[in-house]
Structure formats: C-alpha cells, structure tokens
C-alpha cells in the first residue's frame, strides 16, 4: 500500500472514531453540567457541548441525593439479575455445547436451530403472557420474575456462541495427554479447561451485555422492587414536575456505561471473535 493510501485510511479511521465517540462524550458532558448550564448555552463551550464549569452535582444526586433511592437499588437489581442470568445460561450452555461439539447424538441440529430461532423472538411478544402469568403467581416485580425471562435472551446466545467456540477446540489433545500418562482429571484441568476457558469467558461477557441492555422486560414486568437501571432511567423525575431530570439521567447513564466500556477495552479481540464466529464462518 502506498503511503498516500495509508494516510488516507488513517484519516478516515479517525473520522469514524470521532463519529463513534461524540455521543459518548456528549453524555459525559451533559452529566457534568449544572442545572443552570443545561438550558443556557452561554455557560457552555463548543456550541453548547462542553460545560465551562464542571459540576459533580448530578452524581451526588444519584448516589446520595434525591434520585438515590431510585438509582442505587436499580443498580443492584441490574447487577444481581444480569450476573445470575449469565451464570445460569453459561453453565447450562457449557454442558450443552460440549455435548454438541464432542458427542454424536441425534437432535444436535435441532438444538442449534432452535437456539437461533429463539434469539430472533420479538421479546415484547413474551411480555403480555408473562405479565398476566406473573401477576397471577406473584412473580411480578420480583428478581426471579426478571431472571427467568432474561434466560430467553442469554441462553440461546450462549448455546450458539459456545458451540462455535468448542468446535474449534482440538479435543484430540485430551487423549494425547492421557496417552502421555495424565489421568482424565489431569487431562481435563491441564489441557481442556485452559482451551475452553476463553470461549466460556467470552460467551459470559456477550451474554452479560445482552442482559445488561434489556429494557423491554424490565420496563414492563417490574414496578419498583426489581427495576433495573435502563428501566429506572426512563422513570427518573426531576426535583419538581417542571424540572427535567436530564443531568441525573446522564450521570446514571455514564455509571452503567463504565463497566461495559472497560470490558470492551480489555477483551475487544475476544468479543469480536465471539460475535462473529457463531454467525459467519464462510
């Protein structure tokens, strides 16, 4: 490639990076604006983008102020529900994917096709029947009442992604290790587990992202005792009904975005492999 083409692509890349980062910087910028600066462009620079004076009031509001009794429990609900749903899905899917990639049994293709079909489900279609059922059996607005439907999001995805990962593992190495005198357990711990762990870990990250993102279930199947952050955000209210809760929402949005960005920064390569290996291999 000529130097000119190289530089040209570099410039285009930077344009793409800026386009990608602007909405992120924007939400950070808005979360740092004082209530007065939010509606007054003279207190901001760069065309009402960045505040002249940074204010941490919005963060105080969501962690210890008026919005904390809505935000802090929601954050805990989000963490608990997403972690539990992810762990259940990944454990079940690990057994399932192991069987699919290593054992010969009828129905393998059925399992994979079903998990794909389920991941195409319009989740809102499940809200109506679950809304009715949960109200009758008392699961409405409870954490289990959210974890169960979250499995619809995370389980098919985990089965599909993990099967793709496991099919790339050279399972013969286990036998080779046994031939070399390792016990089954040693062969598993020393050879297979290290090979399988990255796939399991990546699948867990992707499943977690999906659960973390949910708004449909949480906004419709909870009221206040099990609300997760995405749903809580849309129910934030200002100090009075005439004050928009813009700053508080942005601060809360930044807080739930931080863990996601950290995961992406550290595990970018694996996440990309996980997202694409299941779907496209040619």
């Amino acid at each position, binding site marked *: 490639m000529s130097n000119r083409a190289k530089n040209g692509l570099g410039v285009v890349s930077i344009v793409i990076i800026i386009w990608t980062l602007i909405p992120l910087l*924007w939400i950070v910028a808005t979360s740092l604006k004082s209530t007065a600066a939010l509606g007054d462009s003279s207190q901001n620079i760069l065309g009402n983008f960045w505040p002249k004076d940074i204010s941490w009031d919005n963060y105080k509001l969501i962690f210890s102020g008026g919005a904390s009794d809505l935000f802090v429990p929601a954050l805990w609900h989000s963490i608990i529900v997403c972690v539990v749903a992810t762990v259940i899905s990944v454990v079940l899917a690990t057994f399932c994917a192991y069987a699919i990639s290593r054992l010969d049994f009828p129905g393998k293709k059925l399992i994979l096709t079903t998990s794909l079909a389920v991941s195409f489900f319009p989740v809102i279609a499940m809200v109506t029947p679950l809304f009715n059922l949960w109200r009758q059996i008392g699961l409405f607005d409870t954490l289990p009442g959210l974890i169960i439907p979250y499995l619809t999001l995370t389980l098919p995805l985990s089965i599909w992604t993990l099967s793709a990962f496991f099919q790339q593992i050279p399972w013969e190495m286990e036998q080779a290790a046994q031939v070399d005198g390792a016990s089954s357990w040693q062969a598993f711990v020393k050879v297979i587990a290290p090979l399988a762990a990255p796939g399991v870990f990546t699948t867990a990250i992707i499943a977690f992202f999906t659960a973390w993102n949910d708004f449909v279930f949480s906004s419709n199947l909870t009221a206040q005792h099990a609300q997760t952050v995405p749903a809580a955000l849309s129910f934030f209210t200002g100090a009075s009904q005439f004050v928009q809760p813009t700053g508080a929402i942005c601060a809360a949005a930044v807080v739930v975005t931080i863990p996601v960005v950290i995961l992406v920064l550290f595990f970018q390569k694996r996440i990309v492999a996980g997202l694409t290996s299941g779907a496209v291999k040619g």
Partner: protein
Amino acid sequence: MTTVAEAAKGELTPEEQAHLSDRAKGERRLGWRLAGPAFIIMLLVTLYPIGYAVYLSLFNYRLTDPAGKKLVWLQNYATALTDSLFWQAFVTTLVIVIVTLIVELILGMAIAMVMHRVVWPRRTLRTIVLIPYAIVTVVSAFSWKYAAQIDTGFFNHWLHTLTFGGFSETYNWFGGRWSSLAIICLSEIWKTTPFMSLLLLAGLAQVDSAQEEAAKVDGATWWQRLTRVILPNMKAALMVALLFRTLDAVRIYDNPYVMTGGANKTETLSMLVGTETVSRVEIGMGSALAVILFVIVLIIAFVFVKLFKVDLTTSGRS
C-alpha cells in the same frame, strides 16, 4: 477408546458390534443428558409464553375485569388488522427498518473495508467501533435525544454554525413525525452499524485477496472489484448480517420509547404491544398484536432462509 481402536483393526464379531452400538447408545444418552437441560429450559421460557399468548389472543380479556373474560376467537386479530393505529405503527416500523438497513449496509461495508485494510490506527479503531454495540440502547437513545433537544442539545447549534446561520437554532426535531423518526434512525444507526461492520469484516477476511489482485492487474476499476469480486465472495456473511439486522430493527422498542414515547405517530409495533398490555391491560388484544409481530418476524426469517438461501446452521460451521 480401546474398543474403537480394536474394532477398526479388523472384522467385527457380533459381540463387538453389540458392544459398539451399546457405546453409541451410551453416547446418545450422555449427549442428551448434557444438552437436555439447556434445551428444555430454553423451550420452557420461550415456547410456553408464546403458546400462552396465542391462547390469550382468542379472548376479550381485560386484566381489570377478569370476570368479563370471553372467548371471541379471531376477533382481536380482525380488530387489530383493520385498525388505523396498527397500520400506522406498521408503517413507522417499516420506515425505520428500511432506512436503517440501507444506511447501515453502506456505512457498515465502508467501515468494514477501512478496518480490513487500515494499518494505523488498526487496533484502536477496532476497539472504539465495538463500544456502541456494547452500550445500553436506552443510554444511547438518551444521548441522542438530549443532543437533538432545543434547550439542552448541541445539534441545532452545530448545524446553525455549519450552515452559516441558515439552520434555525430553535428547530424542534421532536415536533413532527419525520424529523422525530430521523433522530430515532440516526441513533439506531450509530448504535448498530458497528455490529454490522464486524459481521461484514468477518466476511471480507474470507475473500481471496489473490482474486482481488488478479482483477486489479486485469484493470478492473474499484467499483468493478467491489461488485464483481468482493461482494459475491462474501455473500454468506452479507446475508447473515442483513438477516440479523432486519429482525433486530423489526423489534425496535427501547429507542423510540425513550426518544418520543410514541408521540407524533412514532409508535412502533413492539411499542403498540407494550401499551396495549401494560397501560391499557387489554391482555387479549396485546396478545393478538404480539402474535402478529411474531408472525411477521417468522415470515422475514423464512424469506431470508428460503429465498436468499441463507443457511445459518451450516454457514456457521465448517
């Protein structure tokens, strides 16, 4: 292991054959024992609600009036399909699907090609591009909403400056149907193009670079190389990306919910199901709408798989 090795050596005695099929049987049993729980739970948490929705959709049933529950067969469907609100939501959803799909295909392909060939900043680009995919949709919707709003936003200020004052600083994006949809689409495009471009990048990586070089040597233009060599060779990846995105866009809910709440005729099909169920507690009607949406998704998937021959189970596996 030894049985397989011995059996492979020579003729099988009947005894050994019986033993082998025992082994195969055992493997089957173990296979289902390991895969079964995940499969059954998956079916329970999805098929059961869907079946229940089909059942409920046959009733005139308000949650606040359980005694008035009455079997009305397909009347809910007839009401829904002749209701102007349904068709309005249908058109809104369709517009979002078509606009985002076209833009994302072009933009996603362009980004994929840049990611494929760029030398610097290769890693940074690939990492940054992944962030919108991972971000919570509600967060991205709020970000774009506040960016477009008159009082809090920067859109109008920037457009005002860029057009040397031609664009009004007080333009209300959320005042009309199409301008609201424009912002909804923009936010959706920002959020989901990265996923599209990653799928397309995986396809691009499989295009034989020798073929591309040969076309180049033969004097093919850039456009010819793209349409005659690159795209046909990554058709599988292209179709999978299209299918994923279409089905995702048809189900769009979070984004318009946060942006407009359905005001100015921007309610999508998924939102309509939600309002019927939760705000109006019309369980029967909500279920009928849910089933209709589900059927639409089925039809789209069917068309892709049958007409465009997208073989998902084998294209995924080598």
